[in-house]
């Protein structure tokens, strides 16, 4: 391998790794947002408090 090949290989690996990272983060974000939308569409919303606990005695 010529020296240029090592350089190109390193830049290629770097590009692929960074692209993979970006794709993972973006894809993960999209999926989570979709799930949240689906839940919201199903009428489930975050509640700040819940009602009555176990009745006593």
């Amino acid at each position, binding site marked *: 391998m010529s020296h240029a090949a090592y350089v190109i290989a390193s830049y290629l690996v770097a590009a692929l790794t960074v692209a993979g990272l970006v794709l993972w983060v973006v894809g993960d974000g999209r999926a989570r947002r979709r799930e949240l939308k689906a839940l919201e569409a199903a009428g489930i919303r975050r509640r700040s408090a*819940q*009602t*009555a*606990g*176990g*009745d*006593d*005695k």
Partner: protein
Amino acid sequence: MRLLAEGLSARRGEDLIFHDISFVLAAGEALVVTGPNGSGKSTLLRVLAGLLGAESGRIHLEGGPPGFEHPHELSHYLGHRNAMKRELTVEENLSFWQRFLGDSPGGAGIALDAAAEAVGLAGITHLPFGYLSAGQQRRMAMAKLLVAYRPIWLLDEPTAALDAGADRLFAGLVATHLDRGGIVIAATHQPLGIERTKALQMTGFVH
């Protein structure tokens, strides 16, 4: 001796399972916890046993023996699982727990044979625990409550898998324990046949 729970609430994962539960049990009293599946009975017992942290509230003991900070150190806990090793014989299992648990102040455990007798299974202590039938296993797990003395018993569905005869036998054991000034807290779906009980109905969060 009195066991007090004040404003207990507990969480599983993100969710609050129950909220603001309080009760007081004097020596010789039993509390029967009932409620539909998933309403948090087992969770409550695990909180009382110190196995799960309470989200809020506290549990303490009044007039107990000195030197015990947490009531769970004075408690027997009988959960869904029997805490016995399949590979060891019943006798090895029981004698291990007897020696490991030791007696709490104020009482003494009974001998292994007597305990097996008390749960109606004398004479099969030499079998590996794994060989017993479901109900026999459960009974032997109850024998564990007898071999080492603890004033407080926390029982999670103790009579599941027991036949009618054993139910009565168990009610007898509990009654004896209460007579001696013990405290029993049991979660159950079936009537236990014990008198002098308080009742706690768990509802869970109904939305």
